[in-house]
């Protein structure tokens, strides 16, 4: 019950952690990236527009200052040509000074088409000369300009840029007045056609619906693509963008007024940037509908968001896979442990992750192997012990039977056959066994009882006339100790080698029958497999040999050799 629950828990935990890490980092980075790229894009747009505004401001300033330079140029030229310290020209005596200036003015009208009219005012502000493209020229008209702003400003500041006015209600004009410091305080006033500035402004294209315009120091609209706006003489000094521009102009040097969100001239929300022309106290504005700016940014944002979503989807996929990969070996480990726990000791856990999990699995497998081995050893031991116990019981039983045979019958032959039968059976000697009796007189070992011995071999045994020290039988007797031939093939000096091998016998164990150190016979068992006989077999044979000795001792003498022989033969078959 708790198994699958626990398993699922780990998977979900891993998934949550990985997802949180991967997805969280991705989302965070995208958000940060988005924020910065948004800011950057906005900044780029703003910077681009400010650049346009600055360029326009520069061109306008260039134009206006070039006008001023022209006027100044004609003034200094005339001043240089006029005799030094020329007397103040009187209204009546116009004289050559004005004739010369008249020529200069005419030349300038020819060279600078933007200048419509040139006027010279004397130190009292009276018009001395007026030359125009359109109006009639006037010499010494004496018109009083002493109260006019162009005269006053030029007198005090040596330079004046007047407000924009329109001639014929169609084209913007401006007065530029200049006074030369080193000459008599006279002033030249030029009426300049500002269409060139207009072109700068009206040709400025900003995005789809952006536009540019120029506002003067008093907040009045000077130039706008739509002339009618200019002609309405609109006062914009209270709009936030113009206020910002003027504030910026007074603050000087502080060049970080970036942009203003405000209502545009045509009502909608706009993003406005500006560039000041400090010289003229004019400001060039570029406005672009906010909606348009946002639209251009929106595609970028959508792209980022789409990429992020894709990334998130991928990270979810990757998280699931990763979590599964992390959980799978743990599950296999768990499963393996469970199987081993159920007793499947030959089960091995197969994990090839190349990490600690694999090491853990290997350790577990090793432990399982150990467990399996120790269990197997235990079984073997138990088996061995059981076998040993069984054999002991059999031996006891056999000895008992032999004992019973010895005590129940006085027939030696029967007893000896019983003994050899038990010996062969218990020792599992597959090539049978023989009990010899030693005939001290002839010094020959006579086979007395055989069990599982072929008749042919019994005959050979009779004929062999084995003596003390000969063959395994003679040797054990000579040594008064059990003697065994583990491999008959190797006993090359033995007389019995050939017959034994012929019978298929490979190993022989002989135990002497001793009575008070006197040899009375031998007990021999034969096996068809080469190898040592185990000590327990030797012990068993020794026990049986002593029973045989007892039987032979108790037997009535003299014994009938021939009868015993035939009986043994019948038994062996």
């Amino acid at each position, binding site marked *: 019950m708790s198994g699958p629950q626990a398993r699922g828990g780990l998977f979900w935990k891993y998934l949550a952690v990985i997802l949180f890490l991967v997805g969280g980092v991705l989302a965070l980075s995208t958000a940060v990236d988005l924020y910065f790229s948004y800011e950057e894009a906005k900044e780029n747009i703003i910077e681009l527009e400010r650049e346009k505004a600055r360029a326009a401001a520069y061109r306008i300033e260039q134009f206006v200052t070039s006008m001023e330079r022209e006027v100044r140029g004609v003034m200094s030229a005339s001043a240089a040509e006029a005799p030094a310290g020329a007397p103040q020209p009187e209204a009546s005596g116009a004289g050559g000074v004005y004739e010369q200036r008249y020529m200069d003015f005419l030349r300038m009208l*020819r060279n600078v088409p933007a200048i419509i009219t040139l006027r010279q005012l004397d130190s009292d502000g009276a018009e001395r000369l007026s030359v125009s493209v359109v109006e009639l020229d006037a010499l010494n008209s004496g018109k009083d300009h002493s109260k006019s702003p162009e005269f006053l400003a030029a007198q005090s500041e040596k330079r004046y840029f007047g407000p924009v006015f329109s001639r014929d209600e*169609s084209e913007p004009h401006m007065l530029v007045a200049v006074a030369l410091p080193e000459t008599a305080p006279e002033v030249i006033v030029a009426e300049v056609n500002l269409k060139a500035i207009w072109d700068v402004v009206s040709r400025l294209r900003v995005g789809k619906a952006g536009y540019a315009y120029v506002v003067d120091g008093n907040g009045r609209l000077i130039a706008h693509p739509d002339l009618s706006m200019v002609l309405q003489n609109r006062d914009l000094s209270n709009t936030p963008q113009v206020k910002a521009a003027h504030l910026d102009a007074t603050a000087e040097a502080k060049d970080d007024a970036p942009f203003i969100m405000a209502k545009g001239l045509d009502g909608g929300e706009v993003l406005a940037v500006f560039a000041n022309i400090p010289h003229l106290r004019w400001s060039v504005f570029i406005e672009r509908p906010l909606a348009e700016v946002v639209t251009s940014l929106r595609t970028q944002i959508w792209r980022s968001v789409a990429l992020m979503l894709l990334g998130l989807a991928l990270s979810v996929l990757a998280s699931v896979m990763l979590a599964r990969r992390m959980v799978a070996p743990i599950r296999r480990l768990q499963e393996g442990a469970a199987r081993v726990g159920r007793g499947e000791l030959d089960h091995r856990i197969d994990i090839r992750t190349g990490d600690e999990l694999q090491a853990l699995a290997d350790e577990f497998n090793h432990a399982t192997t150990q467990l399996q081995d120790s269990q197997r050893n235990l079984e073997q031991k138990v088996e061995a012990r059981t076998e040993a116990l069984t054999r002991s019981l059999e031996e006891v039983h056999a000895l008992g039977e032999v004992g019973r045979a010895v005590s129940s019958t006085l027939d030696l032959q029967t007893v000896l056959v019983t003994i050899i039968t038990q010996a062969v059976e218990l020792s599992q000697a597959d090539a049978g066994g023989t009990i010899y009796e030693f005939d001290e007189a002839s010094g020959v070992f006579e086979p007395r009882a055989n069990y599982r011995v072929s008749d042919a071999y019994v005959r050979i045994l009779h004929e062999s006339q084995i003596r003390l020290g000969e063959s395994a039988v003679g040797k054990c007797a000579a040594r008064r100790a059990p003697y065994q031939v583990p491999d008959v093939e190797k006993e090359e000096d033995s007389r019995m080698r050939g017959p034994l091998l012929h019978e298929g016998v490979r190993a022989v164990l002989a135990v002497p029958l001793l009575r008070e150190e006197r040899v009375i016979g031998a007990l021999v068992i034969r096996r068809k497999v080469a190898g040592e006989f185990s000590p327990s077999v030797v012990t068993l044979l020794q026990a049986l040999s002593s029973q045989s000795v007892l039987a032979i001792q108790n037997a009535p003498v003299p014994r009938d050799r021939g009868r015993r022989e035939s009986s043994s033969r019948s038994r062996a078959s």
Partner: protein
Amino acid sequence: MIARSAVLALLLLAAVADAAAAEAQPEHRVYRIGVLNEAWAANHPTVEGLKEGLRELGLVEGRDVAYEIRYTKGVPGATAAAAEELAKAGVDLIFTSNEPATLAAKSATQSIPIVFTLVGDPVATRVVDSLARPGGNLTGISSRATELAPKRLEVLKSLVTGLKRVWFIYHGSDSTDTAALASVREAASRFQIELIVREVNDLGALFIALKEVRRDDGVLAPVVDTFDIPAKILDVARGPGIFPSALWVENGAVISYGPDFRAQGVQSARLVAKILRGARPQDLPVEGADRIDLAVNLNTARQLALRVPPRILVRANVVQR
């Protein structure tokens, strides 16, 4: 692997979308400009000026604009017919030079934008409602004839020392010159010049008037060339005449003061370009001609035994030798 190819696919998609967006921009088209004037050849200076101006603004003939030029060689009625023709042809804009061509175009269409040049007084001649707000479907360049008429008198006076009497001869139907009359009178009285105004309505009256012009009289040529009055002045009148354009000086007139035809064409190109790119003509104020030229023919001056004073030479943009 899957992730990488997916990202790649997405990027590819974005690129394709971008390309598609770029493709979706308005396709390039060739604007057809109908040109209407009463000239004797296709290469009228205003047309040449227009082509030059548009070229400077990036509208190249053949690639961006095509011109359908109708010049009517002064044949009566041909201008109106040509105007109808252009309107029917469905050109994108009609470019006219001079007052009759402009009026013909104006009556031919109320929808196709018209940009005019060489119209002396667009308001007086009812071409537009006002300079600032032209109204209707047209705007253009005013050659400032009315405004410049007194100035012509002044220039003539500068040229001819001791000028006492000036003839102002124009056709009765010519509203441009009629509009200038008051200011010309005022200037004449200021210069203490006797002004003889002759409104002629037939060739006979014209020739009678011209015959009366004395050798030391000046003549103020009209801006509008109904009956070819300026040409007749040039041919018949004995006294020096001042003309409204340098064209006449090149053809033997002694002096002229007024806007250059070609310059007007160049100037109008800005209006044309704005309209082709979507502006409405009624939103574009009529502009006054930018460049006012003073042209003088020294050869003719010598023949008339006139010594051209420095003031004229200094101001002169065009000097014919």
